[in-house]
């Protein structure tokens, strides 16, 4: 049931609604992409396994999430739910879980990006894809900060990291609002700092997921995470230890 704890830790007991924007931020190597992957997996699994049975578009810039890793996350979601089955006979077999995971994967479309133009194209493709398939309920993007340094020689004047992030965020937000779907993205925390006091329109982010990495302990909104056998809250780390980590100077 650990993955459901993760979902509840992010969205609360009621989960998130349509037309929601979720931001997952944190320093490099803090688990942002893996958390995104796990949340996407949760949205993909069928209702009877505690999921949402959605179709998902993944705009993939960092390529940390791939079919292999996402399929693995889905299987972990399915297993985590199956463990809770009261009657052992109702637990699906490994073959059945694999088949269900395959069906979930058929509802994911990867829009792989390797250049800034690819991102623009993918956002447009996503709009058409949603029109074509009303089952798509989530557009995920990993990660907004990936291509900031790309095309350096061609750029006469580089925009700030904050502006780069906000412009891309605004495009994703507009897509989600127009199409009435959820948006979820990752971004490196350095991009959130408005160092130059730029005046940009506010974004309607409903859920903020803050990842931290302190002494090799990864925290999600202050809660310790474990990455063994999927991502879940680490109940083995006591509250006192977590508070001590948070109060230590970084």
């Amino acid at each position: 049931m650990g993955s459901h704890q993760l979902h509840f830790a992010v969205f609360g007991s009621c989960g998130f609604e349509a037309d929601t924007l979720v931001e997952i931020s944190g320093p490099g190597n803090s688990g942002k992409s893996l958390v995104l992957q796990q949340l996407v997996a949760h949205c993909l699994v069928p209702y009877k396994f505690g999921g949402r049975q959605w179709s998902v578009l993944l705009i993939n810039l960092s390529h940390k999430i791939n079919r292999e890793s996402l399929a693995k996350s889905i299987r972990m979601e399915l297993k985590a739910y199956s463990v809770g089955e009261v009657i052992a006979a109702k637990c699906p077999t490994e073959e059945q879980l694999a088949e269900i995971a395959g069906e979930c994967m058929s509802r994911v479309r990867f829009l792989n990006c390797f250049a800034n133009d690819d991102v623009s194209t993918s956002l447009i493709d996503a709009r058409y894809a949603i029109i074509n398939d009303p089952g798509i309920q989530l557009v995920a993007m990993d990660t907004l900060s990936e291509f900031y340094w790309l095309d350096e020689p061609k750029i006469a004047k580089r925009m700030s990291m904050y502006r780069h992030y906000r412009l891309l965020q605004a495009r994703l937000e507009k897509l989600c609002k127009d199409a009435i779907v959820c948006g979820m993205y990752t971004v490196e925390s350095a991009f959130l700092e408005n160092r130059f006091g730029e005046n940009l329109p506010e974004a309607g982010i409903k859920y903020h997921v803050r990842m931290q990495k302190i002494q090799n302990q990864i925290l999600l909104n202050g809660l310790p995470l474990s990455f063994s056998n999927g991502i879940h809250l680490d109940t083995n780390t006591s509250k006192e230890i977590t508070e001590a980590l948070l109060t230590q100077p970084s």
Partner: protein
Amino acid sequence: MDLRPMILQTCTGRLLSEYQLNLLRKNNICSLIDFYDADEKKLHELWAINIQSVRELKKELSLLPKGSVDEGTPDFNYDTGIEELDKLLDSVEQPFKPGRVWELCGQPGVGKTQLLYTLALNFVWKHSQAVLFIDTKREFSCKRIQDMLRAREVDEEASERAMKGIRVVQAATGADINDLLKSFDHQLTAETHASMQTKLVLIDSLAACFAFYRGRRMRDVRKSVLTELACKIRKLALRGVAFVIGNVSFFENNKDSCGDDGEQNGDDEEVTRQQLEPMLGSYWSSVATLRLSVELPEEEDFTLQDDGLRFIYVISNTYGPDGEHCLLRITDAGVV
């Protein structure tokens, strides 16, 4: 992918004449994003077709399986040919397979190149596939490969075949590597036989290309080159090409102040293994999904005769546990 062949893959696009297609280029509409951004009314007037057809064409283009779409990396496992290393990789849930992007880190002279040579030779030997060895230090040793083959007591014909399977290319700068990988990608797209047979790319060593990028401006250029390189590597990985990339590590006292250029600071004797930091900065640290560190055994006195023993530590693993290690030995026949 060029715009024109993409248009010709759609039902609406196939109805367009050659003249209509040529009008796109004449009006500076050369890429897919140019086409998407073009005003529908303008296209309607340019092509003398109704606006609904323009919209239909845009829709059809958006649904095409483009080159950047996940082509489905082949799902089978290679093995490295090094038994202990394969056991380690299995234990951290990252067996050697198509599309892997790994980094091999270590101090200068610790044996990274020896391990890369061994991976290259084992790969061509076991899988009858070619290897692209990108040599940035201009130090590739054919003699060492021959010595390894001789130590394995293979016949002359097999030895020649193995040597031919390792294709060595020199690249002095990051831009050279980018151009090389771009050319490789184009050849794969064109289904060139030699490129189709190449399934593993080894880079020895990436850090050598960036040793002299100093100053703010040059660091920005370095970040740009590394980002571009990461994109090209990932694109090829999606097509089933595996990468093992050499990088240099240095000791650093304070992890928080580790210089992006990897300059060695502080007193070596005061640091522990955990503070061995690879070069190239924080962005690059997230590119490889598995980072392996080659290290001498801690109790070994470097001034004594080298017995060839090396630890391989998993220092970063995107998809599984890290911290595991194994012990290997550099021998005449390679790393075992």
